[in-house]
């Protein structure tokens, strides 16, 4: 990762909560759509947990966005 090479801290940011709220979905409803528990959605929204590529794609699909629109790297 470039952050690791340059020593700059990186974190995965997302507009998961914003988009979910736009669509009127609760964390539980989104979790059910992608086949995880509400806890996992909560941790991704809070930036506590970095999802796998598989989960990121599932979340993006469930919210009608591309992965790049939903997630980005914050430096």
């Amino acid at each position, binding site marked *: 990762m470039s952050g690791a090479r340059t020593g700059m801290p990186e974190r995965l940011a997302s507009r998961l909560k914003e988009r979910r709220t736009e669509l009127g979905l609760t*964390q*539980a409803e989104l*979790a*059910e759509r992608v*086949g*995880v*528990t*509400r*806890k*996992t959605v*909560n*941790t*991704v929204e*809070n930036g*506590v*947990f970095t*999802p*796998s590529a598989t*989960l990121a794609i599932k979340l993006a699909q469930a919210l009608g966005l591309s992965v790049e629109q939903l997630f980005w790297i914050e430096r």
Partner: protein
Amino acid sequence: MDAYLMGLAAGIAAGVIIVAIVKLRAVKLMSVAEKAEYLSKRRARMLPALAVIFLSQQAAFLSTLGSREQTSAYAAKVSAWLVLSIVILAALATKGFWLEPKAVRDLIDDENTRANRNDAMRWGFLFSMAAAIAVYALTLFNVQMSARDAVHIVLTIGIPAALIRWGVLERRAYRDA
């Protein structure tokens, strides 16, 4: 009956009773997602409590540490402790909730839970190794200790470390929900 066998039987009986109580208390008419949520939250609350129960069982062992006098009651307690250790290790190494339907078990063991569980296992391993090194170092200073005592100490440190770490991560995951 041999005291060790009695202890093993008592440990297994306690496990069966706990499972029966949990099954009887299980809330019915829940969807898979609701049940997974309910069980996952309960696990987050239970993990630190389980670590305390596990550690409190060490009183029987610590009270006889270094002495060769081991009564039948002691043997029974240690055997029951061994059963609990095996059950906890199995729960840490697998999805747990063995009596729940597969769909619920799969959902409970989702991506975040697996990451938390793996992290807890790592902590358990590191604490076990640190305990093993400490025990080894003690024997260099002529502290007398049997192999069974040494293993007991390693398990006493490693298992609660994993339980507490998992509990902390699970509770943190539910924060700001």
